[in-house]
């Protein structure tokens, strides 16, 4: 699969570091990525977050819905509750972990859903051109004046507040920009000589798309995904902030923040903890995205 990615001619005049012969483009990018300590650390942190969210029921000291009624508004570091409890006596630390789980599930699946739609339509539009391309551009034009969250809100109003509905709402709102990106990428790669060559020997469009164009579009797509996931997480907590997130009692950072905000003066611990984890999660994805972008971009151009 990596065979297409080896680009010997380009390799000689790029990249300042000497590298062993035969290493793939992806391998070189990975080496560059690993040198970026912040990005690599963030990737490690994300791995940790995923692990924690998978085993959340085991790690969390309480269930997300367990109420310790005699112990409402417990302060952090109290004897039985690490980060205190909320207005119903629910353990903030446990709820924070389950929120992480909700956020990651929605973030990953919504982004992947959007990406899948974007890939299909973007590849098609970029390859075929003509009407489909015109239609895609028209849709993009319309979506530009239709803020993403607005669309998500209306979708949630239609489909209800199940986790699947929210994934669909966020994923659908996000595909347009990505489809444009795929299309731009396809248009670029389409004109490369080797694509021309394989077309001239009669390779079918589908196989060209899958074997030549897709592997070349992977790098920018990976970058988009790593920026798209925190975007979806932010969208999810935004929906929860408006009272349209996952249905309670399932916790979500947005919901915890709105509930905690009512008591913020007396009990700031209720929002402080989810806020920190939320911020760190979003940032670590962004830093990974930044690292990936720098790693794939071997030219020394400034990219603002």
């Amino acid at each position, binding site marked *: 699969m990596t065979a297409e990615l080896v680009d010997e001619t380009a390799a000689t005049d790029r990249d300042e570091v000497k590298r062993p012969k035969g290493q793939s483009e992806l391998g070189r990018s990975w080496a560059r990525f690993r040198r970026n300590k912040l990005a690599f650390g963030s990737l490690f942190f994300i791995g940790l977050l995923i692990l924690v969210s998978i085993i959340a029921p085991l790690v969390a000291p309480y269930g997300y819905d367990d109420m310790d009624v005699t112990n409402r508004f417990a302060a952090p570091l109290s004897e039985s509750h690490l980060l205190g409890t909320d207005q119903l006596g629910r353990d903030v630390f446990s709820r924070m972990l389950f929120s992480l789980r909700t956020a990651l599930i929605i973030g990953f699946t919504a982004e992947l859903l959007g990406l899948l739609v974007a890939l299909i339509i973007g590849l098609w539009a970029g390859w075929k051109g003509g009407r489909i391309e015109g239609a895609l551009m028209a849709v993009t034009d319309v979506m530009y004046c*239709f803020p993403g969250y*607005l669309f998500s809100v209306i979708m949630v109003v239609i489909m209800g507040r199940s986790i699947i509905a929210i994934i669909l709402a966020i994923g659908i709102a996000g595909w347009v920009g990505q489809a444009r990106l795929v299309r731009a990428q396809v248009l670029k790669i389409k004109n490369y000589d080797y694509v021309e060559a394989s077309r001239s020997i009669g390779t079918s469009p589908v196989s060209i798309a899958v074997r030549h164009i897709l592997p070349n579009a992977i790098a920018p797509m990976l970058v988009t995904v790593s920026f798209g996931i925190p975007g979806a997480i932010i969208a999810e907590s*935004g929906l929860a902030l408006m009272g349209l997130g996952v249905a309670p009692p399932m916790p979500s950072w947005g919901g915890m*923040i709105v509930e905690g905000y009512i008591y913020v003066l007396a009990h700031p611990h209720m929002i402080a903890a989810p806020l920190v984890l939320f911020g760190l999660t979003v940032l670590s994805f962004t830093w990974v995205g930044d690292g990936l972008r720098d790693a794939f971009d071997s030219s020394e151009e400034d990219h603002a």
Partner: protein
Amino acid sequence: MLGYMARRLVRMVLSLVAVSLITFVLLQMVPGSFSELSNAGSTIYGDVGMVDGGEAAVNQGDQRPAWQQYLSFMKGLVTWDMGPTYKYPQASVEELIGEAFPVSLTLAIPATLLTLVIAIPIGMLAAVKKDKLADYGSLFTLTTIQALPGYLFALLLVLIFSVGLNVLPVRGWKGPEYMIIPVIALAVQPTAVLARYVRSSMLEALRDEYVVAALAKGGTQRTVLIRHVLRNSMIPLVTVVGPIFAGLATGTVFVEVLLGIPGLGRLFSSAARQRDMPLLMGATMFFAIILMVMNLLVDIAYGLLDPRIRLEQSGNKGSRRAKRPGQPKVSTGMSTDSTETVVAIGGTRV
């Protein structure tokens, strides 16, 4: 130029019709009418079902066929007379929007000004000190800030100034002191977007030949920077500042909801929670109109400021979307968007 403006206007109207159709069709699919959810809706504690069946029957909603409803809505939108809302039968949609919009504007205008005042110097500094510590430091900080949503900064400010120092109010909308936290919180992310944009725009202007010429003629670095580079690199800024302002005037939902500010965003969010269709439809269209008008103004201003765009526009009449600089979406804060813009601008400048 006139032909160009006319074409853009036609396209804008077509897009608006498309947006209204999409919204209308989507809202037709909403299960459960307002009457079923009367007195209730979605809250943070869950969907509250029907509480009072007898009274709810009064609010049957519109029983006419869908296309008639759509036409009467569009007529209402054009004549700015959209009738009563479900939730507040005594108030009309346009009254509620008319009340909420000034509130959002009083936040958006200072926030945009604050953005300009802070972002331009930072971006310039980063461009002039390119590849030095100041550049890397600010670039890193800016990307980091850009990734975080505005309401997160609002919460941080509340934790510091309201909870910690106890000098600013937590929520509400009663006086000037209630503006401080939302304005700063709203300005943070656009500042990061704009500063990065100023930086790359300046860098591009610095590479142009007229800069070399001006330096060769004996201009000091300072005068060249201010009189040549700054003036030329400010032109593309129009394309970013316009959408930033439009985004702030409409897209402040989360900050408004959180801080209890009675602006457009909160109006929209409560309409959505309560399934108040006339209000939801009206607010959505209002958002779309503002964003589109802003885009139109940006395109026209850009054409006026940079004759090259204008010439190119009249040059290839055949292609409908010849040169339109992409707009960065402020609300999502995805840095890929601004890169796209820079690329698009770069294309028009060559």
